């Protein structure tokens, strides 16, 4: 059995799952008490009588998001080595930054090392400010992590938490690496406190099964792993919702996922049943990062969004002015339109009609309601269309990739959230696609959290001319011989993925996929001097197999 818990903005949901069956569900309103307390309350209600049958707990948490919003972040010291390129001044993450001299180039070759004096000097200043958490990032550290490790070794005794850029992602993009490292460092002590509180709660309830945290990419990570990489747990809410929709509808097709709430609609896309990922990572509080994340777009459009009628068209959201009129509010909402059309049966019908008449006096309430919901669906369609176009427009770098580009062609819509059923027919006719509204969608997020499985990504860069192999995610940098080829690369990378899976999840991965395979000869003069191989491997986001 698995317990899945999803912590949202206003409430937290939990389910107890056995295989695909929901044995128990529970909702608590999040109020004054600490987040940890609400989670423990949920657990208490869900834990099966025979505690031994509980295999694990999966948790999606807003902890990191809240820490950001409430600004309860650690003060972070940053060591940044930019080398030649853009002026790095914009990367100053607060006041405590040391821009290091020296550089590593695009091929991972060390051009010049940083100076010890500047590192030591900055470390002294940071310590004087009681900074406990620092981040170390160099440009191209995914190709060569030497300088990051060197700095770490010099300051290892000075700081409680040190985050290294290359460990957080093997992807390129230096500014994103800087912000990812900063964010990870800034969340460290908050996350450690959270773990402590949770562990205390577990022991109070006599639970000793492992607990996993949901990540932004729809996968899970062990609690220990999350303590090392707390930034990965950001945006776990939207990813729980995507995984939930996946769990409730079994499908292997291209599809559109909509999670329609009170004020927002979250959109995700599936290609052959697999949710699409952001090309680099999530944006967090405006900062671009390398945190691997599901591709989701949020539109300020929900059942309770306030609606007005201006110049012959509706304006829906993004703001909300209290409850829909049918539930006693003062401003018209899409929910009122649903009530008028009998798509929902709760609420006062007269009030709902009044809402439509307020919007367009003299017009039949039914007509206004129809058109309002149509406008709602049209807006969603526009955003979905934009997302599909955006995915199609992602850069390609080879002739064969250019020729093989294919647009996602959704075969259905999967819709969850409060207004899902009420909007089903309108969405169906707007998208000209079958629209599925799964049962139990009100606990989709908790189910999604419960069913999510471990995800891992690792990247390999081998340069046989320089005889160097790098797998940044496991801090590997070693010598290779000239014969190192794609087969050796696959072997080494799969090994790395399995190692990461053990470290971060304690489980053996089911399937490792290789992606972005590139091999190129390097030529100087008229002779081939070696080859560059780059390769990524991943365990894709997916659902745990139901075996129990």
């Amino acid at each position: 059995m698995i317990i899945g818990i999803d912590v949202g903005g206003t409430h937290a949901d939990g389910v107890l799952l056995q295989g695909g069956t929901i044995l128990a569900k529970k909702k608590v309103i999040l109020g004054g008490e600490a987040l940890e307390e609400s989670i423990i309350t949920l657990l208490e209600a869900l834990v099966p009588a025979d505690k031994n049958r509980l295999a694990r707990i999966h948790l999606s948490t807003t902890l990191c998001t809240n820490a950001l919003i409430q600004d309860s972040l650690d003060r972070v010291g940053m060591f940044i080595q930019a080398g030649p390129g853009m002026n790095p001044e914009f990367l100053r993450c607060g006041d405590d930054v040391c821009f290091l001299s020296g550089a590593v180039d695009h091929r991972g070759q060390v051009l010049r090392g940083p100076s010890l004096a500047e590192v030591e000097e900055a470390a002294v200043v940071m310590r004087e400010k009681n900074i406990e958490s620092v981040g170390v990032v160099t440009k191209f550290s995914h190709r060569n992590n030497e300088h990051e490790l060197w700095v770490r070794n010099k300051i290892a005794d000075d700081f409680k938490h040190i985050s290294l850029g290359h460990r957080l992602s093997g992807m390129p993009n230096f500014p994103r690496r800087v912000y990812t490292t900063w964010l990870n460092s800034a969340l460290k002590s908050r996350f450690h406190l959270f773990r402590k509180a949770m562990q205390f709660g577990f022991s109070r309830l006599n639970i000793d099964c492992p607990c996993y945290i949901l990540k932004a990419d729809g996968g899970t990570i062990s609690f220990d792993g999350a303590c090392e990489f707390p930034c990965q747990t950001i945006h776990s809410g939207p990813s729980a919702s995507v995984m939930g929709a996946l769990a409730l509808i079994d499908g292997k097709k291209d599809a559109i996922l909509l999670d329609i709430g009170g004020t927002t609609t979250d959109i995700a896309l599936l290609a052959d049943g697999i949710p699409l990922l952001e090309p680099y990572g999530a944006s967090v509080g405006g900062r671009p990062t390398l945190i691997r994340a599901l591709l989701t777009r949020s539109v300020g459009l929900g059942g309770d969004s306030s609606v007005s009628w201006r110049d012959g068209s509706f304006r829906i959201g993004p703001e909300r002015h209290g409850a829909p009129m049918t539930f006693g509010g003062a401003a018209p909402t899409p929910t009122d339109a649903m009530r008028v059309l009998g798509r929902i049966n709760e609420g006062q019908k007269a009030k709902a009609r009044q809402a439509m008449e307020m919007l367009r006096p003299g017009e039949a309430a039914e007509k206004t309601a129809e058109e309002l919901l149509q406008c709602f669906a049209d807006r969603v369609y526009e955003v979905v269309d934009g997302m599909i176009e955006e995915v199609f427009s992602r850069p390609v770098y080879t002739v064969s990739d250019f020729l093989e580009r294919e647009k996602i062609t959704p075969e259905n819509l999967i819709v969850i959230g409060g207004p899902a059923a009420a909007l089903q027919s309108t969405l169906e006719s707007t998208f000209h696609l079958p629209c599925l509204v799964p049962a139990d969608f009100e606990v989709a997020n908790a189910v999604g959290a419960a069913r999510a499985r471990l995800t891992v990504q690792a990247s390999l860069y081998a340069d046989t001319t320089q005889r160097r192999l790098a797998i940044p995610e496991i801090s590997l940098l070693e010598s290779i011989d000239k014969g190192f080829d794609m087969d050796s690369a696959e072997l080494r990378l799969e090994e790395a993925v399995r190692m990461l899976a053990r470290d971060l999840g304690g489980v053996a991965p089911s399937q490792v996929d290789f992606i972005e395979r590139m091999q190129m000869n390097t030529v100087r003069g008229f002779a081939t001097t070696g080859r560059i191989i780059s390769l990524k491997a991943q365990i894709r986001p997916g659902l745990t197999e139901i075996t129990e």
Partner: protein
Amino acid sequence: MTLFMPQARRKTGLVLFPAFDWCISPSHPEREERLLYTKDQLIEEGLEDVANIHFFNPEMALEEDVDRVHLCVPSAAELMTTSHFISTGGAIRAARALMDREVERAFAIVRPPGHHAMQTVFGDRGFCIVNIEAIMVEYIRKHYGVGKIAIVDTDCHHGDGTQDIFYNDPDTLFISMHQDGRTIFPGSGFVDESGGPSAPGYNINIPLPPSTSEEGFDTVMERVVLPLLEEFQPELIINSAGQDNHYSDPITNMNFTAQGYARLNRNLNPDICVLEGGYALEGALPYTNLGIILAMAGMDTSHVREPDYRPERFVQSAEMNRYIEDICSQAIEVFAGRHEAKKQFAGQEQVVERKRIFYDTTMFQAAETRVYHLCQRCPGYTEVVAEGLHQHVHGFTVPFNACGSCSSKAKDSFAKTDRESDTVIVLQDRYAGIFERK
């Protein structure tokens, strides 16, 4: 836009297409690896996240885009690979992004390049089969009605293909600065190659001595390029942005830098850049391309320096400075004398020109005769007869800025020309939008 990423002052579009799976041959400078390190640098810099910088995929150019400019023998489809259609389409995509106001500046970082491809094409010369800038220029004229365009070629090699295509067009000011043709391929590009009878003085060559450095290029910009552009008042400025003047380029002998390229582009302020040559894959291209992009976007370029950059290595001797100043004066005179030069053709009905064109990639010569049919009202139409690899082409080309009567004359001549078994006969009328072969 976020507070956390810098913002480009000018909205800038990049078509980055390194064609990692295409080469002329495995050890050729134009091989898969060419833009590998450039792409790595640009991506690592995070340019994709810079506010106001937008990346576009290329598109496929159409055969009609190519046929508007070239006389390909036997045909465009038979000479070009898919990569050529994509790199041409990359330049076109950059132009569309600009003309449709998606961006204010655009840079096509694509390969293979194009500036050695002349009007008649029998094969690959100087790593080029079709002239991607020229195709882009005529695309812009056709679809957006732009007339006056300046092309400034900053590749180390003379842009002989572009010169050839626009040689008789007074609405195209072509300026090429390059290493002196006596010391490097293609061996042309001297000051006296100054334009056809309808456009004398609109083709400006500035042959520079080997080892020309930042100072030399600054002088050329200040004394020639900027004043000429000021006077010509083009609607668009295009930079044929080769980067092989770099001090570390393996197939040239110049002494230019990333800082220099950035400054040149800041001063030139081109609407569109199209990558041409540049073969120092590791030590130059990642930095020169970044410098050009940041300059176009109006961003800080002060940190874009090659790892081994030492300013003292780029000081020119007084003698070299004087030599370059002298070349600049000659170039200015060519342009200043353009109206006078035109008078010498007054009253002539046609001017004949013969040349031999060397195709270095597969080593053969083509022979070409060009007859400029002059007109009082317009640049007139051109008749081209060329032979290469035992194939013949006989073309009648009417420029976009021709008059109706020249268009009809070319059409009549085409109609009267008898079909021959080993000759492609072509009517290429940009004025009327007609392309016919028989």
